[in-house]
C-alpha cells in the first residue's frame, strides 16, 4: 500500500514538474511572426540609412521624440510635451523613467548626443533634416531646449523623422557607432536578439516599453527574413512560412490575402528641362496629355494608385485637392506640340533603375508606346541600380531626358518632398531652369519654410502647387498604394509611410 501511494505521489510530482517546466516557457515564447522584405537591413545604426526597408528595423528597435500614428497624426513619443518659447526656441519635456534595453536610463543627454551626431554632415546621412538646428541645450535630466537658426515650424515633425531614433549617448562616438551598427540598443517596443546577415534578424518584445498601455504585446517575437525574389517571397507566404511580405506585384493580389493603403509616395519622372524642346512648358504638358495614367493604374497596377497633380501626395501638408490630373487627350497633345513648333515630333530618353518599383520597365514601355502615337519618340534605357544611384547623386541626367523616381516626404509636408527635390541643390531643382514661374516657385517655398502661421503656409503652398500643376516641371503620374501580402492570422492597419511596426500588429490565435 505504502509503495503504491508512494508511486502515485511520484507520478503526481513528475506531472507537476512537467507542467511547471512547460508552462512558463510557453508563456514566455508567445506569438512569433515572420516578415519577409526583398532585402536585408544594411546597418542597425539609424544615422546611417534612410532606406525604407532598413528603417523598418529602426522603427521597432528605437523610439523617436514624436511619432506618426497609423492615421499619420503626430503623437508624443519619448517627448511628452513640446512648446515654442519664441520663434526659434523649442522646449521639450521627455517621458520620465524610460530605460534603454540594456537597463540604463534614457536622459536628455542621450537625445542631445544623438541629435548632435545626426546633424553633423559626414557622421550621418540624415544631416539635411537636422540642418535647421542651431544649438541643443540640456536643461534637466528630462528637459531640453532646441534653438533653430531661423523660425522652423516643422521642428516637432523633424523629431519624428529618419535619424531621430534615440540610442545611448555612448554610441554617438565613431567607435560606439560601429558597435551600434551590429548590436543595436534602443528603447523601442522590440529589443534586438540576433542578426545573421542576409539570413534573419530576430527581435523580442520589450515588456517594459512605455507604449503598451498596460496590455501585453500581441507579437512577442519578430523574425525578419530577406527574400529578394518576388516569386519566392510570394511562395513563402502561400506556404505559410512567413506572415507578412512587402513589394507585392499588383497582379498577384488576386492570389493572396492583402492589406493596402494609399502611400505617401508618388510615381514621377524628373525631367531635364534646361534645353529645347523640354524647356517649353507646352511640350511638358503635351507629355502629360499623351499618356493614359488611368489606364496604366487600372491595368498595369491592378487599380492600385491614384493619379495626382501639383506635386504632392494627398498625405502631405500643402496638398491642393483642386488640382485635377490632366486627362488623356492625344489630340490636345499633338496640338500643343505643334504650337510649340514641334509638329514633326520630338526625341526624348526615358531612364529608370531596374527595380525602382514594381513593373518599372513595363511602365516605361507603356509610356513610350502611347507617346509614339502623338510624335514623342522615347528611347528607353533601363539602368543597373548603382548606375542609377550615381546619376541621381551626381545630377547627370542629360537634357531632354526623364528619369523614374518615387519620392516620399518623411515630414509629410511639402517642405520634405517638393522643396527637397526642387530646391536648386535638389535632384529636380537643377533641371528646372530658373525662369519666371520657377523663380516664383522658389520664393514661395523658401518663404513657407520659415513661416510659423499654418494658414499662411498653406496659402503659400497652394500657389506653389498651382505652379507645378501648370508648369509640369516633372512628369506626374500617380500616388502609390502600399501593398502587403499577409497570412490569415495577421491583422494590422497598413501605414501610408511604409513602416511595419510590430506593436501595431495583432495575431489571431
Amino acid at each position: 500500500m505504502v509503495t503504491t501511494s508512494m508511486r502515485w505521489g511520484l507520478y503526481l510530482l513528475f506531472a507537476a514538474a512537467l507542467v511547471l517546466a512547460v508552462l512558463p516557457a510557453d508563456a514566455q515564447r508567445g506569438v512569433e511572426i515572420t516578415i519577409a522584405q526583398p532585402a536585408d537591413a544594411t546597418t542597425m545604426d539609424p544615422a546611417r540609412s534612410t532606406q525604407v526597408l532598413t528603417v523598418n528595423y529602426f522603427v521597432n528597435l528605437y523610439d523617436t521624440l514624436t511619432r506618426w500614428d497609423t492615421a499619420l497624426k503626430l503623437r508624443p513619443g519619448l517627448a511628452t510635451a513640446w512648446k515654442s518659447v519664441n520663434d526659434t526656441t523649442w522646449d521639450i519635456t521627455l517621458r520620465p523613467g524610460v530605460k534603454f534595453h540594456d537597463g540604463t536610463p534614457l536622459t536628455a543627454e542621450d537625445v542631445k548626443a544623438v541629435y548632435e551626431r545626426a546633424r553633423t554632415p559626414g557622421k550621418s546621412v540624415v544631416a539635411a533634416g537636422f540642418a535647421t538646428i542651431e544649438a541643443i541645450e540640456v536643461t534637466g535630466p528630462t528637459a531640453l531646449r532646441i534653438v533653430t537658426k531661423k523660425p522652423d515650424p516643422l521642428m516637432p515633425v523633424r523629431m519624428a523623422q529618419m535619424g531621430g531614433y534615440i540610442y545611448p549617448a555612448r554610441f554617438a562616438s565613431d567607435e560606439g557607432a560601429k558597435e551600434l551598427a551590429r548590436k543595436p540598443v534602443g528603447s523601442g517596443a522590440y529589443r534586438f536578439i540576433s542578426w545573421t546577415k542576409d539570413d534573419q534578424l530576430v527581435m523580442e518584445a520589450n515588456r517594459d516599453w512605455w507604449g503598451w498601455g498596460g496590455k501585453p504585446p500581441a507579437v512577442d517575437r519578430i523574425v525578419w527574413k530577406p527574400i529578394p525574389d518576388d516569386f519566392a517571397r510570394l511562395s513563402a507566404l502561400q506556404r505559410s512560412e512567413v506572415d507578412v511580405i512587402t513589394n507585392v506585384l499588383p497582379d498577384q493580389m488576386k492570389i493572396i490575402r492583402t492589406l493596402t493603403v494609399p502611400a505617401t509616395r508618388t510615381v514621377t519622372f524628373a525631367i531635364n528641362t534646361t534645353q529645347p524642346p523640354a524647356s517649353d512648358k507646352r511640350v511638358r504638358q503635351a507629355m502629360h496629355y499623351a499618356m493614359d495614367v488611368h489606364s496604366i493604374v487600372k491595368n498595369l497596377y491592378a487599380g492600385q494608385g491614384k493619379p495626382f497633380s501639383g506635386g504632392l501626395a494627398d498625405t502631405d501638408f500643402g496638398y491642393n485637392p483642386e488640382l485635377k490630373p490632366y486627362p488623356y487627350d492625344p489630340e490636345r497633345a499633338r496640338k500643343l506640340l505643334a504650337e510649340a513648333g514641334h509638329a514633326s515630333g520630338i526625341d526624348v530618353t526615358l531612364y529608370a533603375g531596374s527595380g525602382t518599383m514594381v513593373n518599372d520597365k513595363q511602365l516605361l514601355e507603356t509610356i513610350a508606346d502611347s507617346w509614339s502615337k502623338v510624335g514623342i519618340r522615347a528611347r528607353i534605357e533601363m539602368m543597373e541600380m548603382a548606375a542609377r544611384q550615381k546619376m541621381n547623386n551626381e545630377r547627370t541626367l542629360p537634357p531632354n531626358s526623364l528619369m523614374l523616381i518615387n519620392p516620399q516626404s518623411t515630414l509629410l509636408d511639402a517642405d520634405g518632398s517638393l522643396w527637397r527635390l526642387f530646391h536648386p541643390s535638389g535632384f529636380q531643382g537643377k533641371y528646372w531652369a530658373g525662369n519666371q514661374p520657377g523663380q516664383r516657385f522658389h520664393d514661395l517655398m523658401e518663404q513657407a519654410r520659415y513661416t510659423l502661421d499654418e494658414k499662411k503656409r498653406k496659402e503659400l503652398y497652394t500657389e506653389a502647387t498651382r505652379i507645378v500643376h501648370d508648369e509640369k516641371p516633372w512628369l506626374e503620374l500617380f500616388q502609390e498604394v502600399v501593398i502587403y501580402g499577409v497570412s490569415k492570422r495577421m491583422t494590422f492597419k497598413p501605414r501610408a509611410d511604409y513602416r511595419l511596426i510590430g506593436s501595431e500588429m495583432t495575431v489571431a490565435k
Partner: protein
Amino acid sequence: MAVVAGRADELLIADVATRRRRVPWPLVLPAIPVTIAVLAALAAPWLAPHSPTSGDLAARLRPPAWVEGAVPGRLLGTDLLGRDLLSRLIWGARISLLIALSATVIGAAVGSLIGLVTGYYRGRVDRVVTKLIDVQLAFPFVLLAIAVIAVAGPKIPVLVIVLAIGSWVGHARIVRALVLSLRERDYVQAAHALGAATPRILFRHLLPEILSVIVVLATFDVGRIIILESTLSFLGLGVQPPTPSWGSDLRDAAAYVRQAWWTAAFPGLAIMIVVLGLNLVGDALRDALDPRTVDARARG
C-alpha cells in the same frame, strides 16, 4: 606521314561531295526549327501580324487563341502590356539570333585563334595569355559586363562584344589544350620537318582536327548566350525595351507564370527548340567534319 594528313583532307572533301547526294537525316530534322527561326528573323516585318512594341493595356495577359478568353487575332495570346506574343516572338528571333550568333562567331573565332597560336608556340606568349584567361575566369562575368556597358552604353554592338568576351576564354582554353597534344603528333612534326610554314600547319593540319570541337562548343554557346543576354536584360544592361528578345521576354514573364503561363512558355519553348536544334545540328556537323568519323565511315 604527310600522306596521312593529305588523305584526311581528301576524304573531307569527298565527304562534302557525298553529303550533297544523300542528305543525312540527323542533320535535316533539327535543322528545320533552326531554319524557321532564321527565316522568322529575316522576314519579321512581313511575317509578324501585329506591332511587337505597341499594345492595348486593357487586353493584357490574354491567353492563346485556343483557350477561353482569348482576343481574336492574337494567336499566342498577349503579354504583360497587351502586345501580340506571336509578333514579339518573331521579332525577338531577329534580336536573339543576331546577338547570340554574332557573339558566338566572334568569341569562337578569337578564342580558337588565340588557342591555336598559344598552344602551338607555347613559351612566353602562352604563359601571358593563360594568365590573362585565368584572371578573366576568376573575374565575375556580370561585374565585367556592368563595367563595360556602364562605359560604352547599352547598345547592341556593345552587347555582342561583351558576350563575345564572355565566351572566347572557353574556346581558347580547350583549343589550346588540344593543340598542345596535337602538335606533338607525328604528322604535325612531319609537316614542320618538310618545311611547311606555320600558318599552313595551323590552319591546314591542326584546325581541321579540332574544328569539330569548336563547332560543338559554339552550338552550346549559342544557347548559353541567349540565356546570358536575358540575365543582362534583367539587370538593365541588355537589349533595351521595348525591343523584343526571347531572353528578356522570358525573364519578364517569370513572375506571371501562374496567371499567364503562355507569356513564359512560348519564349521558353522558342529558346529550347532552337538551342536543341543547334546542338543536334552541331552533333551532325561534327560527325560530318571529324576526320576520325569520316575514316570510320570510309572503312565501314
